[in-house]
């Protein structure tokens, strides 16, 4: 819990999610041109591309085949077959091309592409900047999207400068050569510099910060390490050994995965302490009136909470556990004794 970040509850857009009414129509409108542009394509491959089961796909194909117009003369505009697991569209009428991109769709991709281009610049990433693939893709997508591309310039994801260029270079080298690294790593919750060997797995940029994910041989577990907290780093002449069962963290669900062993802490916050609820994921947030908040959070590290309470001063009081509140008072009076 010592890293800051947040995973406040929020609903991802429901736009086009599988199973809704509009999603199926969108899929059907894309399915015909998908096959037409490939002339012939396998059922399994197509189902995978559309994120549906083969059974659902066959149901879609049957529905398309059944479309009938009655006037002036009855006819079926779409003719297709999927014998032997291969889809062929022999007649597609006016359905042979996909629908143009909506503003949201064009924006989602363009905003992300521009962010990647910026990462390429700040991190001088081969693959992201070499060959200018990003700039070419952005230009082509803008051209294809036409007017729908315009609002995308009103959304931006700014990428922080990665100050640790040397560390980043070393880590990429270690990842490429599958080498173990030795880290001197600062843990703010304990105000400690820790020494550990890590077998690197991947680099991540989450919520604007750059992390190394790796198998920590000190914790015997997958851990995330912030690059800006690495005090020093050595690439060792030892092969990295990430255990076969080591799963990358599901960062999409947030960076913090509270455990049942964590300490439950209740803090009451004055208006000037409300930032705590913004910075750290809380299990419960309750308004107490006059801008005061009561938050419940979980942490494996009581030291982190003591530091937080000292930082908050009169703007935050630990309500529970009581023993922790007493420790904070002891910490404060010990510190004040230095000023006597």
């Amino acid at each position, binding site marked *: 819990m010592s890293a800051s*970040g947040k995973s406040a509850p*929020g609903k*991802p857009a429901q*736009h086009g999610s599988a199973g809704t009414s*509009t999603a*199926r*129509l969108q899929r*059907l409108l894309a399915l015909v041109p998908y096959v037409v*542009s490939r002339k012939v394509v396998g059922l399994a491959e197509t189902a995978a591309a*559309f994120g549906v089961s083969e059974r659902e796909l066959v149901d879609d194909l049957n*529905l398309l085949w059944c*479309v009938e*117009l009655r*006037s002036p003369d009855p006819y079926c*505009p779409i003719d297709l077959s999927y014998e032997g697991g291969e889809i062929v569209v022999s007649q597609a*009428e*006016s359905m042979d*091309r996909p*629908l*143009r*991109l*909506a503003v*949201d*769709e064009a924006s*989602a991709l363009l905003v*992300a*592409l521009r*962010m*990647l281009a910026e990462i390429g610049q700040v991190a001088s*990433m081969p693959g992201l900047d070499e060959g200018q*693939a990003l700039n*070419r*893709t952005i230009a*082509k*997508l803008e051209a294809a999207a*036409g007017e729908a591309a315009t*609002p995308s*310039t009103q959304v*931006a*994801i*700014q990428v922080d400068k990665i100050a640790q260029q040397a560390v980043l270079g070393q880590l990429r080298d270690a990842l490429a050569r599958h080498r173990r690294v030795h880290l001197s790593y*600062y843990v703010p919750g304990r*105000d400690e*510099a820790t020494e550990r060997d890590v077998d690197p797995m*991947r*680099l991540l*940029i*989450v919520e604007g910060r750059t992390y190394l994910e790796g198998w920590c041989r000190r914790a015997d577990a997958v851990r995330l390490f912030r690059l800006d907290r690495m005090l020093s780093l050595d690439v060792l002449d030892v092969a990295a050994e990430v255990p076969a069962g080591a799963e990358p963290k599901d960062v*999409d669900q947030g*960076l913090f995965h509270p455990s049942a062993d964590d300490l439950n802490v209740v803090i009451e916050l004055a208006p000037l302490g*409300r930032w705590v609820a913004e910075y750290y994921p809380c299990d419960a947030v309750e308004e107490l009136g006059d801008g005061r908040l009561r938050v419940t959070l979980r942490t494996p590290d009581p030291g982190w909470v003591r530091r937080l309470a*000292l*930082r908050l*001063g*009169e703007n935050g009081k630990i309500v529970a556990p009581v023993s922790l509140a007493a420790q904070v008072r002891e910490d*404060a*009076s010990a*510190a*004040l004794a*230095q000023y006597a």
Partner: protein
Amino acid sequence: MSRRKTERLLGLVVCLLSSPRYLTAVQIRAAVPGYPESFEAFKRMFERDKEELRELGIPLETGFNSPGDDEAGYRIPRQAYVLPEIRLEPDEAAVLSLAARVWRQAELAGAAAGALLKLRAAGVDAEDTAQTGIEPRLLAGEAAFGPLWEAVRDGRPVMFAYRAAGRSEPQQRHLQPWGVVNRHGRWYVAGYDSDRDAARVFRLSRIEGDVRFSGPAGSVIVPAGTDVRETVREWDTQPRAERTAVLRVRQGAGHGIRRHATPVPDGSASDGTPGRGAGPGAADGWDTISVPFSDAGWFAEHLASFGADVVALDPADLREAVITQLKGALA
């Protein structure tokens, strides 16, 4: 959605897309199976169908085939409907997949997936396998993002309750939004605040309750030359660290503050007063270091978090602020 409705909507799209002429409601009912017999029931269903197609971004046009017609008809012009040709090289398709993954669980995930679907339908082979060694992610976050993005996209003014830092009560604010920016992993909206008659930046996490539209689409004018990233950057940029603090730090502790420190080599404080402490490695178990800072209040909170391991010596206002902070924690 029922299969019948899907069939009907699909038939409607194919019918209007294939026709070079505007088709009247009556002609449409005759051509597309699945509409009810009663004309009133048909009209209601047809109205809803048109709305659904427009929500999908299908350009449904209304017009007359000739000036003499007394009833308007409908068509979907092919040119407005189709995605223009797009051909991507393998490396371009790879970065496109990576871009779609950025949103994965975040607000525009559905839109990114929808875009990828259409591009695949246009013949682009965007496999989900791009390897770059570095993976950027946005996390699902702010409830206010959706409505604010809509407002920015459609040029609509909004109103919302906002609790500025340290305020006890949220205030109702009115904003003509210019753009939404993610900075240091947090979302902000920038725009013209009509209550304050000035450009303002708001943090989405401090918006309370619903964001409501307070004016029609297209009524927000973004001033020419506006760079929303720059607006947010200026607002968020911390003042340069211009002052210098002299601190005593217990040996083996205070790593978080030492990282920004410059040692005081001759054991003197920055004002030249001798004998106040000792440089690194001093025998009394304490080091004296100097650290740049800008805001005494904020820096005092930071120093207080180190408890008895860090002591502020100088300047006096910083020292007082730390003492106040610690007394607050003691109370």
